[in-house]
């Protein structure tokens, strides 16, 4: 697993901010690099699944620890 290129800290932000901030961040991430997203919005689980399916980016890692969801996304 290569290193994280960019981290988006969206903890405490409500829908749709975790997705909006991630969509903004990926613009500055080269293809193939990894973006880490931290979010506390429970809706983000389904939202990131839908967003990656629609945009072609891929979730390569997904964990949850004490209410914090962590997604590692590979930029398409």
């Amino acid at each position, binding site marked *: 697993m290569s290193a994280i290129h960019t981290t988006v800290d969206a903890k405490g*932000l409500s829908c749709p901010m975790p997705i909006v901030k991630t969509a*903004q961040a990926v613009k500055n991430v080269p293809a193939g690099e990894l973006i880490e997203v931290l979010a506390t919005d429970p809706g983000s689980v389904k939202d990131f699944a839908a967003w990656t399916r629609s945009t072609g980016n891929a979730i390569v890692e997904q964990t949850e620890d004490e209410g914090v969801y962590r997604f590692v996304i590979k930029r398409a």
Partner: protein
Amino acid sequence: MDDKPLAIVLFSGTDDKLNAAAVMASGAAALGRPVHIFLQYWGLDAFRADRIEDDHGLAAEAGAEGKAAVDALRAEGQAPWYETLAMAKELGGVEIQACSLSMDVLKITEDDLHDLVDGTEGVTAFYLAAGDAQILFI
């Protein structure tokens, strides 16, 4: 890529409905969908440059309990609707147009409007711009 355009007719001017529109717009923008927002009546009135940050109240059905819930979210630092819209515009593909009839009714000129608004158009231009977009009325 799901890129079906979204067109929102934003008629309502209370903060909850303005926020709902901002959420729908920014979510679509994050998916790369073009978004066209048409501001009518009280939705347009909320975009006056000198009032955009005012408290625009809530829909009647919110009641005291609803207001408390919304106030609590604000206190936790939820971004106001106009900041969410500004972020959506930064993502690109989001255009906001004022309805010319509503401008006449409310005696508003383009100089009175916040920079988030890109221009003025009539309903015909709106339908032409919307094309086969999904249209929401809020």
